[in-house]
């Protein structure tokens, strides 16, 4: 594994170099790509671009946010393991995206993946690509989507936290991004994607991001097995304030995630933001209320779990539904995820350590279906009416979208896991697990005890 990493980096650079060398040869591409004047400029709206620039930054911040959200929940001896996995995803998937991930996902094409025209970002410059976003540079859309491609595999980390080998994790992530994320993303969002053409609505990633990651989480949790000693005793979060901090950053970033998906600073972006915030707020208080009823006391851990569930669930619906629908969706998000996390999981007995499936997978499915119920052309004429607005067909379409994503992600994630497991055990040896991932996988300690 050791040197492979470096070689990979070098190879990437060379690969990319070829593309840019070509580019440099005929020059024009690059010029049109970035120069902010002439025809390109006239198409670009500075207000829309300003909102995209900050949305990109907001969504980038979500991955560190997730790192703290998850990092606070694990034991002290594993917190760096979680932070490391999140940050390495930020690095590796950014590279993957630039080299080929963006092309596989978004280059127009009707196949399994998108086309190969945009490998190494060839042709992706300052001129808008109208089919995706007419008033911002194509590069802005590309890098905005890069942040989605980063956070999705990072979400899965919650399922196998505290017991996966770092090298295996790295390989899993790259393969998963390429063979699960990129195709599903293309099908639902890419020009020529078959689910998109069928009419599946997924505003900001209910299926592409949350179901996709959630199913992979379920698979890996099942296959890797429970943490040692899990049966006897629940694991208390080692630093709940960190988890709260992560939630704050995620909520903050989610405004860019959802409202940024409007790809401009318009009424739809504002409405999406309102809807997103409403769902998060209602879901938070709903979870607190459920705990108050069933566990005597509301907890901050529950409240923020509810908010995250509300955010995940509203994601696919956020650009299509009214504020009222958002409140209902937020309410349902907490009820359903509460049942899945606090009742179903212990019954079934798998160890989805930080509830990556229970919150994101379940929330994503719920949100995609809710979109089929509550979507309204009155909110977004570019969308469709849902069942409650007289169009039952949309609900069926959403069901198909959900079904395809669930099955595809489950099966392919399983295959990837198993293949890696043949070459190297994916799970760390028990001794390493006992000592903790920080020391055994990274030779570091998060906190000093003396001094």
């Amino acid at each position: 594994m050791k040197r492979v990493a470096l070689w990979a980096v070098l190879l990437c650079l060379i690969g990319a170099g070829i593309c840019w060398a070509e580019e440099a040869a005929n020059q024009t591409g690059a010029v049109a790509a970035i120069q902010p004047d002439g025809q390109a400029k006239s198409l670009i709206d500075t207000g829309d671009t300003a909102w995209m620039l900050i949305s990109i930054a907001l969504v980038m911040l979500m991955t560190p946010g997730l790192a703290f959200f998850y990092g606070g929940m694990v034991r002290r001896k594993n917190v760096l393991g979680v932070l490391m996995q999140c940050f390495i995803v930020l690095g590796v998937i950014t590279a993957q995206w630039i080299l080929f991930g963006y092309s596989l996902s978004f280059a127009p094409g009707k196949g399994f993946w998108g086309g190969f025209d945009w490998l190494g970002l060839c042709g992706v410059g300052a001129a808008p690509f109208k089919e995706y976003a007419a008033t911002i540079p194509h590069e802005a859309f590309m890098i905005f989507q890069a942040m989605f491609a980063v956070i999705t595999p990072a979400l899965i980390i919650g399922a196998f936290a505290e017991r996966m080998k770092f090298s295996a994790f790295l390989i899993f992530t790259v393969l998963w991004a390429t063979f699960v994320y990129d195709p599903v993303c293309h099908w639902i969002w890419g020009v020529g994607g078959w689910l998109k053409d069928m009419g599946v609505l997924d505003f900001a990633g209910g299926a592409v991001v949350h179901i996709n990651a959630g199913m992979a989480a379920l698979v890996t949790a099942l296959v890797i097995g429970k943490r040692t000693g899990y049966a006897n005793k629940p694991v208390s979060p080692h630093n709940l304030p960190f988890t709260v901090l992560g939630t704050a950053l995620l909520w903050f970033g989610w405004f860019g995630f959802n409202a940024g998906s409007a790809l401009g600073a318009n009424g739809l972006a504002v409405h999406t933001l309102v809807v997103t915030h409403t769902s998060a707020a209602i879901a938070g208080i709903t979870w607190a209320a459920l705990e108050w009823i069933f566990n005597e006391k509301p907890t901050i851990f529950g409240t923020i779990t509810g908010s995250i569930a509300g955010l995940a669930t509203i994601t696919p619906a956020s650009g299509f539904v009214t504020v009222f629908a958002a409140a209902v969706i937020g309410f349902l998000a907490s009820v359903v995820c509460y049942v899945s996390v606090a009742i179903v999981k212990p019954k079934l007995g798998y160890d989805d350590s930080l509830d990556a499936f229970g919150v994101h997978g379940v929330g994503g499915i719920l949100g995609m279906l809710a979109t089929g119920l509550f979507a309204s052309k009155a909110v977004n004429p570019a969308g469709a009416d849902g069942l409650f607005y007289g169009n039952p067909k949309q609900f069926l379409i959403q069901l198909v979208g959900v079904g395809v994503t669930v099955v595809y992600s489950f099966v392919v994630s399983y295959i990837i896991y198993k293949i890696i497991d043949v070459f190297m055990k994916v799970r760390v040896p028990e001794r390493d697990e006992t000592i903790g991932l920080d020391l055994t996988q990274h030779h570091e300690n998060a906190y000093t005890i003396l001094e």
Partner: protein
Amino acid sequence: MKLIIAIIKPDRLEAVKQELYKEDINLMTVNEVLGHGRQMGITEVYRGAKEMGNLLRKIRLEIAVNENYVEPTISAIIKGAQTGEVGDGKIFVLDLAECVRIRTEERGGVAIG
């Protein structure tokens, strides 16, 4: 010489210190521990998983004294720490074979204070 170890409730530390000062006992070593005693813990709940937290935060005092200070120390601790409720804690007294002041290398009773 004796080494007195006392386990008390965290919020009594201030009171115990005051009582000890009154008896002119100023030297001590303190740290935080978790105690498992007759006192009922408080259930903790994390995402629905309940845990009967049976380890409660306590403060542990270590005080080395000469024989004639043993009883004053014990009663000062009791005065400061007693609330009458379960969980007030315990005092353990051990024989101290030797005591050395690092700074002066003095030994025995004279080194203790």
